[in-house]
């Protein structure tokens, strides 16, 4: 794959103030985003939040109302789609049903007046790249969904575009194929080093594939960061709730470093709170520390007695539904490894103690 000549320093793709309305409905509110060369960025958010619209604006398939797009040092804000440099893959594959796999992959090459042998070589190379070297003579309808999506990927990569756009490429596939293709796409992308935007509403997909995640909600960016950063330090309540599960504990600041929740004062790892202000504490279920012995740490800070209300088995781990005792502390859930449940003492009705580590209690937004 030809290495793209760097025509400038700085990000490969820069979006500035992108806004878009459909009639009265504003789909995007001033999106600013920079994407580095060779990285895989996912747009993650609920259905209807504007991910596809933003991707189509990058492709020139939709025109933004406001804002600029600079790709590889070149202002492409007003360029029609056909003159931009990208390959695109859709959820529906959009393979041409009446053309063979070979003709599908060669579709854009033929138009570039390349030599016949060069096209043959390139198509063979691409089919091998996506792991379907012998499918050239078949028609799309004769392949499985996952195979069709691989062909769509080969077609999009055929002319070695500088930018690869993927709009929910895995959503139409069954769970097994989805998992397999996830890894394949990521490996391929890293091997080719092609700058890639992947649109998805599936948080697991985003977490496992992305270099960076752009969390979107209602036409705005909520947070941009690495999968770890987005998960561990969500910037907003929306980001915290959308990615992974999280406990929400409403309370009132009882000092610079503590919050009163349901009659219990919880210590936090910060000391900038204003006493008396209402706050919400966020706590990932896996950060809750579970003690089988209800007497553990009696009276210690952030430790309270609780009763197991239910146990949900989720394969590798279990989710405990917990009802803290004695106070009107809100119910919360905790993740524990399966073998911890197997060891006994965590059955529904069991009395236990839990600790909410100060460093894991966060205030967002």
């Amino acid at each position, binding site marked *: 794959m030809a290495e793209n000549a760097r025509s400038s320093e700085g990000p490969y793709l820069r979006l500035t103030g992108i806004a878009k309305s459909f009639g009265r409905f504003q789909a995007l509110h001033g999106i600013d985003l920079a994407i580095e060369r060779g990285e895989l960025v996912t747009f993650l958010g609920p259905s209807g939040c504007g991910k596809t619209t933003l991707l189509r604006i990058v492709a020139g398939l939709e025109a933004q*109302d406001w804002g600029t797009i600079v790709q590889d040092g070149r202002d492409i804000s*007003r360029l*029609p789609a056909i003159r931009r440099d990208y390959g695109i893959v*859709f959820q529906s*594959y*959009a393979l041409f049903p*009446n053309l063979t796999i070979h003709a599908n992959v060669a579709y*854009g090459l033929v138009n570039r007046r390349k030599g016949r042998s060069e096209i043959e070589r390139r198509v063979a190379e691409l089919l091998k790249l996506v792991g379907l070297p012998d499918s050239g003579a078949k028609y*799309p*309808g004769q392949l499985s969904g996952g195979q069709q999506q691989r062909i769509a990927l080969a077609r999009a990569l055929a002319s070695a575009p500088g930018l690869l756009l993927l709009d929910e490429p895995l959503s139409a596939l069954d769970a097994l194929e989805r998992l397999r293709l996830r890894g394949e796409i990521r490996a391929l992308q890293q091997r080719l080093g092609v700058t890639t935007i992947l649109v998805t509403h599936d948080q697991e997909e985003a977490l496992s594939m992305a270099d960076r995640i752009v969390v979107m909600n209602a036409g705005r960016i909520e947070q941009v960061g690495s999968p770890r950063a987005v998960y561990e330090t969500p910037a907003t309540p929306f980001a915290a709730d959308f990615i992974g599960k999280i406990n929400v504990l409403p309370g009132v600041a009882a000092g610079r470093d503590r919050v009163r929740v349901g009659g219990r004062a919880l210590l936090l790892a910060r000391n900038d709170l204003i006493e008396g202000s209402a706050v919400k504490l966020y706590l990932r279920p896996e950060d809750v520390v579970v003690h089988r012995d209800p007497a553990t740490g009696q009276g210690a800070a952030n430790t309270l007695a609780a009763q197991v209300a239910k146990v949900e088995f989720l394969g590798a781990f279990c989710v405990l539904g917990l009802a803290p005792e004695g106070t009107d502390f809100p119910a919360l859930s905790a993740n524990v490894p399966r073998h911890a449940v197997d060891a006994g003492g965590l059955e529904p009705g069991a009395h236990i103690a839990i600790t909410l580590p100060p460093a894991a209690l966060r205030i967002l937004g």
Partner: protein
Amino acid sequence: MATAATASAPGPVAAGRVVRQALHWQERLALALLVACCAALAFFLLGPLFMILVKSVQDKDGAFVGLLQFRDYLGTPALRQSIFNTLGVALVVTGITIPLAFTFAYALTRSAMPGKAVFRVVGLTPILAPSLLAAISFIQWFGNQGLLKPLLGGTPVYGALGIVISSIYATFPHALMIILTALLLADGRLYEAAESLGTRTLRRFFTITLPGAKYGLVSAAMVVFSYTVSDFGIPKVIGGNFNVLAVDIYKQVIGQQNFNKGAVVSLILLLPVLVAFVVDWRMQGRQHAQFSARAVPYVARRKPWFDGAMFVYCTLVALLLLAVLGMAVYTSFIKLWPYDKSFSLRHYTFGLVDGGVIVSFFNSLRMAFVTALLGTMFIFGCAYLLEKTRGMPGTRALIRLLASIPMGVPGMVLGLGYILFFNHPDNPFNVLYHTLTILVLATVVHYYTSSHLTAVTALKSLDGEFESVSASLKVPFYKTFHRVTVPVCLPAILDIGRYLFVNAMVTISAVVFLYSPDTQLAAVAILNLDEAGEIGPAAAMATLIVVASASVCVLYALVTRVLLTRTQGWRRPAPGN
């Protein structure tokens, strides 16, 4: 990829201004074609209709007289009677045809009787013939020298009775097609659920079948009503002294050369058809919402009594339909009804060939061929631009509106509009007047709506991102159009071609004002032969039309079958029958 940035790269986005994307020349081309389509439709549809409006408020000398002519018209009792006659006949025809067609369609979809394919074909045969054929045939059966005249017990067939039975014959296949589609679309799972719950047959009929087919029934009723109101051939031939609006227009225009009166009657005729059209339109909108994409077709189980009864009914109807067609064919092959029934080709040789009338048949063939070819190209091309390109939403909305109007315009009205518009000295297109071209144009416009809907449905079933993919691959849209869109839509394209051909062969109302001695069409020739009392040659001409239409339908079936076999490598099994 740096090459793409050369030459006419659009300038940067001006701060604080709404971004306007630069258009690629290919996008410009697509938009230019779209605008051209819109302009052509507007010109050839709205121009003529507008002229009717203008003429209706002018007197013969072109002076504005307001609604005076309407008052005149409504003040003439004989003419006013036409309105009641027209509506009355149309209501009776609708009331009889719909139950007949519904029962027939019900038998085809819900029973396990044998011979369904044959019944279906026979049920649709009337579509192959001009409506005049029915009128001629019924005259042979029940007319002054009719074989079954005594059956009518003294009531003459000429008049309301003849119009009603001929119209039932002519409208039956149209109603059948619509109701069949509605019943086929209904979800079989509902029936299976009802059967497993032990719901009684009659109850099932009233709670599932009828509601499911409701919109189809209304739609069919509106089509039958409009057809009967608009048809001119039947009342002209068998109507006797029973005046109806369509014939009134003809008399005003051809008989008295009074175009202004003709325009007034046209507008009066347009009214009930427009009402039916609007009702149908709104119903169709709801029907689409009613069916889920995953509806499962119903598979009928054997029920001896029901299947038997349905078989008897269908056999009866099929025999009656064949008796009408058969009588016309028979008449064309005997010497002189009813005196000399020996076989003879004289109506063809002497009546058509020697008289030179046969030329009109070849005119019809040529007109139908050109209509099918150019009409299909324009209609499909326009639908493609409409559905698959971007920009100019206003123009698109206008095209959608224009494409739906022809369904609501009776052929007589369109035809009159065409003379008024193209005969106008100031119209630069008036050179078209009296040419084959104008006949083609009028026919394409007349049958635009159904063809357009077929094209749009086929295009909508394609993946909506083909055009986006092409753009990303730097392939021009027209290349994807001919490499992908047309091949995938070929069955629908052929269907449109066949529809236009058959209708161009049988149409009379839209073209009866537009032909010249050089461009007389077969259906018009039947009319003129009948007027001259030449029933034999008229029947012979009708037979030729049926043969031509039927041949094209057979050809279509064969080509489609070959096509589907050859492309089954990539085509998924064809839906439906």
